[in-house]
């Protein structure tokens, strides 16, 4: 149906092309997933199809884009709107109107469809995506999953033949993400829609994908069935990694499939020891913290302790109060009730205040607050405002009263090898996060809070972040990280707190909390049962099984 032929795209004449003579053919009714590291050209590939590249990004495009063997290479996005629908990463950023119904109709108004047709399609789409209840709602008041479904609906009303989605689930909680993916599968199965989506959290989309397109870098493109492509991919979701470790051939792609084969595997293995909660000193204690936003309670009576050397994951659906809680703990956010005490100020490195005093960060000024509790907010780039990494670091040193070079040294330790003259905007997602983390840590807080740091990070960047958090915990920091990413939580946390409607609904060691929850269970737990969290546990257990003597000696 749609075909890319020998497509080459380079942003600068001299630089290596982002896409180098790429061929891709999309057939009617297929669901194709595009994967690869951030910055490798996933969005660019999608943009070539929608027409946004090179119009909105610049660059030189050559090759051919064919729709039913007619060239559409030179059509601008607006002239492709009736056969290619595009849904971006952040639905809110793409909304033009302010209510659900008007948003669904907007595209059709541009196409000039007759009013009767518009009305019929709006009603059909409302039903198809389960949005009928929300038709009069203001878009800003919808939850993330609902917004994303409206965004999909607003292009569906134009009856496109191809739906292109750029990481549609990256900012959604696990349940909302499932909801959106289920909607997409339904479109493919029931309506025969062709869907092309970029995604780097592969674990969720693999079961639905007909084909996988992998961009390994250097402008190349590998395609095939998911099993084929993943066999040689350097980064794979946990389920495929488990398959490799266990020697399953072909690699399983669905949890159901893997579970069937896992029975044998588990029989001979020693289950990993239960995770022990960090037992270090309590560095931050919250008692019945409450936050109210214009009379609606966001956080309602939360008790929480953060221990030195411990990493706690804060989970819950979008809007469950995670961000409000984090800001309230730091002291910058308004709190309507309860107490927060940060303990052992003397250790926190500030002089002039009584040692071992319990301090409430909300009572202090911003500068003393950040010496007690560091916070990396959801949009970390909000902290950056200078032209180079070096200047950002120098400003951070000056602001924290640290000796010059402290921040740069921290950054070098977190993520080595960042060029100091780079503009922070040109850093990769993961590097920018590391820079913000270094700036925050320059004030030497012992307690560190991170709000959704994994958003937009690919597997290697997430692994890097996990390592950084491990190191911080080893250095006797107390870390709290809010995340939607269950695999990341399983990798990094030793305790998990789950919020719902501003209240703690479960907390405890990571293996218990994640294992008990159907929504938050990582893939390995789903396959092997409670107790198992990560593939490295299986690797270790297999090694032990093969050479029990070595373990005894160790």
């Amino acid at each position, binding site marked *: 149906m749609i075909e890319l032929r020998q497509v080459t795209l380079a942003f600068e004449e001299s630089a290596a092309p982002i896409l180098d003579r790429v061929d891709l053919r999309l057939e009617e009714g297929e669901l194709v997933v595009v994967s690869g590291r951030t910055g490798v050209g996933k969005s660019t590939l999608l943009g070539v199809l*929608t027409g946004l590249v090179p119009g909105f990004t610049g660059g030189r495009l050559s090759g051919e884009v064919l729709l039913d063997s007619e060239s559409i290479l030179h059509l601008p996005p607006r002239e492709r709107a009736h056969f290619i629908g595009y849904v971006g990463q952040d639905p809110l950023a793409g909304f033009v109107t*302010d209510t659900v*119904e008007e948003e669904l109709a907007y595209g059709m108004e*541009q196409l000039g469809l007759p009013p009767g047709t518009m009305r019929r399609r709006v009603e059909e789409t409302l039903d198809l995506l389960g949005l009928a209840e929300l038709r009069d709602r203001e878009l800003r008041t919808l939850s993330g999953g609902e917004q994303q479904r409206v965004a999909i609906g607003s292009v569906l009303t134009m009856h496109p033949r191809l739906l292109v989605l750029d990481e549609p689930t990256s900012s959604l909680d696990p349940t909302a993400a499932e909801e959106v993916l289920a909607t997409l599968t339904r479109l493919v199965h029931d309506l025969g829609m062709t869907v092309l989506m970029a995604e780097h959290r592969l674990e969720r989309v693999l079961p639905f994908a007909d084909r996988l397109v992998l961009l390994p870098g250097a402008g190349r493109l590998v395609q095939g069935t998911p099993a084929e492509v993943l066999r040689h991919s350097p980064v794979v979701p946990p389920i495929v990694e488990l398959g490799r470790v266990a020697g399953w051939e072909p690699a399983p792609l669905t949890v159901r499939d893997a579970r069937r084969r896992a029975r044998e595997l588990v029989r001979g293995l020693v289950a990993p020891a239960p995770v022990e909660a960090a037992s270090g000193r309590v560095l931050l204690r919250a008692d019945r913290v409450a936050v109210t936003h214009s009379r609606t309670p966001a956080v309602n009576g939360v008790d929480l302790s953060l221990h030195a050397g411990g990493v706690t994951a804060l989970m819950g659906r979008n809007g469950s109060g995670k961000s409000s809680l984090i800001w309230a703990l730091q002291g910058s956010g308004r709190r309507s009730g309860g107490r927060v005490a940060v303990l052992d100020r003397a250790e926190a490195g500030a002089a002039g205040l009584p040692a071992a005093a319990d301090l409430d960060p909300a009572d202090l000024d911003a500068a003393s607050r950040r010496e007690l509790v560091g916070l990396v907010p959801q949009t970390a780039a909000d902290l*950056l405002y200078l032209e180079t990494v070096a200047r950002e670091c120098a400003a951070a040193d000056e602001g924290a009263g640290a000796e010059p070079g402290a921040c740069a040294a921290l950054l070098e330790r977190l993520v080595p090898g960042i060029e100091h003259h780079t503009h922070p905007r040109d850093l990769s997602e993961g590097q920018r996060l590391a820079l913000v983390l270094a700036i925050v840590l320059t004030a030497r807080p012992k307690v560190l809070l991170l709000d959704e740091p994994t958003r937009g990070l690919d597997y290697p960047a997430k692994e890097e972040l996990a390592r950084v958090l491990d190191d911080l915990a080893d250095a006797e920091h107390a870390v709290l990280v809010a995340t939607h990413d269950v695999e990341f939580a399983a990798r990094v946390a030793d305790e998990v707190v789950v919020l719902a409607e501003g209240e703690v609904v479960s907390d405890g060691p990571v293996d218990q909390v994640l294992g008990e929850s159907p929504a938050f269970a990582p893939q390995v737990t789903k396959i092997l049962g409670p107790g198992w969290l990560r593939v490295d546990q299986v690797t270790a257990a297999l090694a032990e099984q093969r050479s029990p003597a070595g373990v005894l000696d160790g």
Partner: protein
Amino acid sequence: MRHRPARDLHPVAWWAWAIGLAAAASFTTNPLILIGLVGVASIVVAMRASAQPWAASFRLYLALGALIVVTRVVFRILFGGVEGGQVLLDLPEIPLPEWVAGVRLLGPVTSESLLAGLYDGMRLAAIVICVGAANALANPKRLLAAVPSGLYEIGTALVVAVTIFPQLADSARRVRAAQALRGGPTGRGGRVRRFLVPVLEDALERSINLAAAMDTRGYGRAGGAGMGQRWATGALVLGGLLGVCVGTYAVLDTTAPRVLALPMLALGVLAALAGLVSAGRRVTRTRYRPDRWLLAEMLVLACGLACGYVGWLLVREQLTVAHPGVSMVPYLSPLALAGLVVAALPAVLAPEPRVARR
């Protein structure tokens, strides 16, 4: 009255009604009529404004009106005005140099001068409040959606601008909170920069995202208009607007040649309309569920027109009611009262607003 289904009145009807009221206010300096008009506007807003955010803006307009009245009166005290009359407060006059002849600073405050300032301020305040009422009653975005298709591009730009403001406020709040999390220069310039750079970056990114989203959804599809046709449309619209401006000026300035007055105005309006029609013809867009124009809209419009007409009649027939002057006690005639009552009728004639469900 039988039960009517709740719906939002056509925004144009509300604006026409409000303009009628504002016109009536502009014809008079009678404080009783002006207070009456403000009261009418407030009642209608209280009865028929929906629970949407824009409706809350009416209070701001009331405050603005009060500010206008106070400013006018204070100016009268500072700079005097009407010479002679009953002295209320004899302030010493501050001598000013020769070259500001004609301006007096302080000096005796007369009751006439104060009243003149008060009436004048009230007139301006009443006009502002009438516009505020329209703003509170009609969704500004729906009004923009009702513009003729020739003005569609401008309408869209305005809609986007209206949407951007709350988002900009969000982003400003976010950045301010985030910057408190890091150390950095605390000097004035440094602080401003720390705040502005991320906010502006955010705004820029957002606008590019929105532009891309609109483009992929078909905004601005070519309607088959040639270059020549575009030029013709532009020339007609611009020429028409110029004609309207010249005509309006000549109508107001009685010393201007008469041929520039009404004939010019009519010509300008015609040219502008022709431009709009020509522009509208090349737009292939359609509108989803446009606001309907029904009986209630006609009635509300008629009430506004009637109110404006009564204001005009008062000037012609009952000058002492329209402009009681500062030396007599203002009073209301039955005609003026009737005008106010008619202006208030939309409070019951218009259907109940359809409050967005939450």
